[in-house]
């Protein structure tokens, strides 16, 4: 009985550890949205050894620049970030991203607010590499006024701010659908099964089968061949959605690759350290147990 109990307790201890960890990565899915999924070919950056595909980041930047940034800002991002190690336009010749001519070129396409130091007037000037991406609208009210009352969220950390991260972005962008019959969608709203929401009040069908998802003010932003990729990749909706999701994943966590590489080294080191300590432990405790 006692041996059995000890085993039970040990198993319970381990189960407690496992359960704590399981609960902590909770199934606290928001509302009743559909579960986001990765594109068929997968994301290169997922998994403990995943890294970003620079070509994909460049394509993703193009989609962001030409489509998303018409309404969304990404103010935590600086132009120099684009040219830093691991970034879309990193070039080994220019270790300092501020010297990267391509990054300089991108920055100069944007106007940022400044003060004329001679007159004190508010002016705008072309951005430099050290500037942050400018705000799209002066303030929240201006943003809402231009977007039918809805506020386009800043995209700097959007993949960390949504359950599912890049998968959510990809699924949302490719997931727009006609609303199911019986769902009232207001003017200027669009149904998307991946959007978090509660549709019960807009649903006139069977109350047990309220459709998953929610409505959002953003119209489906992508359609085939909306942008022209510089590398000749065919710009299908799926391709663009995957590319921009990868870009936003990078933008939200630009040090992810370095983090994982460091992690592998740290774990190998700790493993060896643990082995040595265990050997020392055996030697010290020999005959004392």
């Amino acid at each position, binding site marked *: 009985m006692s041996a059995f109990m000890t085993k039970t307790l040990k198993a319970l201890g381990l189960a407690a550890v496992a359960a704590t960890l399981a609960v902590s990565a909770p199934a606290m899915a928001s509302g009743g949205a559909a579960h986001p999924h990765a594109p068929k070919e997968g994301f290169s950056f997922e998994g403990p050894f995943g890294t970003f595909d620079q070509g994909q980041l460049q394509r993703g930047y193009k989609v962001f620049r030409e489509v998303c940034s018409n309404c969304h800002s990404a103010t935590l991002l600086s132009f120099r970030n684009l040219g830093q190690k691991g970034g879309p336009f990193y070039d080994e010749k220019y270790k300092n991203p501020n010297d990267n001519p391509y990054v300089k070129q991108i920055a100069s396409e944007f106007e940022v607010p400044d003060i004329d130091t001679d007159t004190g007037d508010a002016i705008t000037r072309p951005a430099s590499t050290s500037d942050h991406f400018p705000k799209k609208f002066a303030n929240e009210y201006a943003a809402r006024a231009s977007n039918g009352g809805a506020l386009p969220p800043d995209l700097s950390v959007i993949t960390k701010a949504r359950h599912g991260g890049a998968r959510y972005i990809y699924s949302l962008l490719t997931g727009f659908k006609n609303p199911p019959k019986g769902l009232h969608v207001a003017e200027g709203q669009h149904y998307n099964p991946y959007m978090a929401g509660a549709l019960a009040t807009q649903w006139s069908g069977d109350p047990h089968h309220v459709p998953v998802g929610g409505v959002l003010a953003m119209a489906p932003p992508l359609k085939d061949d909306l942008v022209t990729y510089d590398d000749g990749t065919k710009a299908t909706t799926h391709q663009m959605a995957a590319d921009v999701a990868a870009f936003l994943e990078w933008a939200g966590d630009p040090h992810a690759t370095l*983090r994982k590489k460091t992690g592998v080294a740290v774990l190998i080191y700790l493993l060896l350290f643990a082995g040595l300590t265990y050997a020392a432990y055996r030697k010290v405790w020999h005959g004392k147990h």
Partner: protein
Amino acid sequence: MSDHPSTYEPKTGVEKWLDQRLPIVRLAYDSFVDYPTPRNLNYWWTFGGILSVCLMIQIITGIILVMHYVPHVDMAFNSVERIMRDVNYGWLIRYVHANGASMFFFAVFVHMFRGLYYGSYKAPREVLWILGCIIFFLMIATAFMGYVLPWGQMSFHGAVVITNLIGAIPVIGGPILTWLQGGFAVDQPTLNRFFSLHYLLPFVIAGVVILHIWALHVTGQNNPAGVEIKSKEDTVPFTPYATVKDGLGIILFLMLFSVFVFFMPNALGHADNYIPANPLVTPAHIVPEWYMLPFYAILRAVPDKFLGVVAMFGAIAVIFVLPWLDTSKVRSMRYRPVMRWFFVIFVVVCLGLGWCGGQLPDDMVFSIGTSASGTPIGLNYVWLTRGLTLYYFAFFLIIMPWIGLKEDPLPVPASISEAILADHAKKKG
């Protein structure tokens, strides 16, 4: 720090000189080198050492983060992201600090359950236990205030909910709430003072930890057999025996820690906290960090606002008086065949409460059909939580005192060395 005779002998002239003026080396030697440690301590005992490492990690990374963090409602969120992006190794420091809180709580829960199972709270270790409870309470307060600092959606609305708990106190609750928030809503004054206190409390914790270790060295460590040290045969010197074992435990723990920091740094957090705080919208599914979920579940289990708060704080308060609720003469549950099963259920109940705390109260655990009006029939989370809450309190207030009187304990070994011999015999036989 300990009541065993000091065996420290200063060797060099400098050591002798210092020993006569401030015997600090003697203190360290007697406490951490020659200190007699029970021979039969198992790996559950390494969590004490693991916890001191956790506290050190949190204090060091915290001080570094303060060098870059800005406690202002308009800048806090961006300053944290700046740490993550631009500060050298900022991502590492911040992820270690954020995940470190979870690791700290994980270790403290194991440490507390270990104390509960082996009766480490029983005489003469009541003060040791209470000091531990104070540390736990301070940890909760510190962690809560730290979580507010990034000023994301969960930070803000978490602060609103928790400060409003105080407002539930009849009559004086309102003025105290205003005093605590420094205004009529959670705002800049609240953030500023939480920042100040979040910096202060870890040092208070460190102070109480010193008292905790002092008390430990006065009474001596408990051990799995639950019998006191009788002779030199029962002990080994702390160094190298306990140091090497604790060291191994710490390294294994750091491996778990690293998996989170480097490969899933946001798995223990909530996506909503990467949305800057917005006082006008509460996130659709607001829950505290995982380590507070059991207490949060107890709060929600009670339909009355004030009584809910009382129950939640009561769940912590009852741990303080545990030494006087246990009537058993036997310390370790190894020799308590009935009580150990109630302990097993208690652990499951605590995990269950944590699970319920993360669910919507009206959601169904399972349903056995629907009523005529279309509402599902079955067990919802709020009722499951109520059942679990009932057991939580009954365990301390009814089962502990009652089983202690009724139970027929197994024979307790006469000494630690005898317990070890019995173990050996069992393994061979």
